[in-house]
């Protein structure tokens, strides 16, 4: 059995860990509110953008010759996966969930005999993927300096993706991120952004015919690169809200576990203290008896 002194030290150390996790939880909760707010505020933009593109897509008469960002390069050989994770740890299963999702997707791709290229956004994802897929990672970006997800960063990622697409380095692009549902649930998502997936939203086709100025093709070729950045920005916002939510619940659990541990250790401490007192008493009594 550990000595009294050791137990005391352990209790103190667990308590100070608890203080840290509690503080982290508070910070995450405050940041979560802000992140959630900006995720909600950012939604109208990407929704409207989607709507406009949908309307445009319906207006395009010659779908065969539509811009490549919309219709794809006609091949399905090289896949680019943009894996978006956080830059910081201690946020529960947040990063592992994305990585798991991405890895199962990678496995399927290699089964189908397709080439894989990876871009990681956020250093944690890079760390986890480096081991198994180090040779596939073609770029790693992280925005540690920026406090909140901002459009400027998203545009950087978007521009890089588009440049690579125009250089015909890949045919299909998918982004991986966590969608924020609530504090406890975040759903890892795989979203294909090139070529754009228009099929699944076809039911809300609008009847209205639009006038286009200049013509559809020109607008589309202007709009699609913007849409890529917008989708990436949306993913970033969702991700940052998810990260804080996930961290908050992880830290909440950690705080609770630390509390349980302190309780257990305190009981053990008291027990051994009592045992020591009893032992001392017996020694005194038996010493007195022998006189």
């Amino acid at each position, binding site marked *: 059995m550990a000595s009294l002194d050791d137990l005391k030290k352990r209790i103190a150390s667990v308590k100070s860990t608890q203080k840290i996790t509690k503080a982290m939880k508070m910070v995450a909760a405050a940041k979560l509110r802000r992140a959630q707010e900006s995720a909600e505020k950012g939604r109208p*933009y990407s929704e409207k953008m989607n*709507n*406009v593109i949908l309307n445009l897509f319906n207006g395009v008469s010659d779908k065969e010759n539509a811009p490549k960002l919309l219709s794809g390069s006609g091949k399905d050989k090289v896949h680019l996966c943009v894996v978006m994770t956080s830059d910081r740890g201690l946020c529960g299963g947040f990063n592992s969930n994305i990585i798991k999702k991405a890895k199962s997707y990678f496995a399927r791709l290699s089964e189908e005999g397709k080439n894989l290229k990876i871009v990681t956004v956020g250093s944690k994802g890079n760390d986890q993927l480096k081991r198994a897929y180090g040779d596939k990672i073609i770029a790693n970006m992280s925005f540690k300096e920026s406090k909140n997800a*901002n459009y400027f960063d998203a545009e950087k990622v978007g521009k890089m993706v588009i440049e690579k697409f125009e250089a015909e380095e890949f045919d299909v692009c998918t982004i991986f991120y966590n969608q924020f549902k609530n504090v406890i649930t975040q759903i890892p998502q795989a979203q294909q952004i090139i070529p754009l997936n228009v099929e699944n939203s076809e039911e809300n086709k609008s009847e209205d015919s639009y*006038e286009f*100025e*200049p013509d559809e093709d020109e607008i589309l070729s202007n709009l699609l690169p*913007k849409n890529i950045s917008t989708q990436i920005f949306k993913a970033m916002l969702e991700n940052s809200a998810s990260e804080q939510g996930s961290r908050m619940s992880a830290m909440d659990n950690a705080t609770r576990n630390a509390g349980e541990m302190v309780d257990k250790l305190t009981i053990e401490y008291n027990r051994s203290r009592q045992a020591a007192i009893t032992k001392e008493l017996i020694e005194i009594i038996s010493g007195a008896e022998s006189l």
Partner: protein
Amino acid sequence: MSEEFKVEIVNPEKSFLIKEDVSEVVVPAFEGDMGILKDHISIISFLKPGIIKILSKSGDENYYVEDGIVEFKNNNLSILTSSILNIADIDKSQQQDLLKTAEEEANKSEINDQSKYLADQKVEVLKSLN
């Protein structure tokens, strides 16, 4: 009959502005400035750098935009833009900064015609703000 319609400006971070009582909006569309009144035909177009003028009963407002998309439908005007500034809020130094970056962009050598045109537009508009 009222001659007013709704305008909504959104940027990626948030809903920038929503106004219900607008009588006319002038947007710098790619092929020239375009005035939009109530019951305009549904239209989609995109913007070049310029000034958005919003005319309403409660006063006129001017915004500087660098890019964006406009969609008008059922008397709802949506403007999506990633860079928008209220001209009343722009001070001299900010304007100079914007002008400087725009000029740098316009003077780059490896620039294609369209971005050159856009950058020149920016410079022109920013200069006219003085």
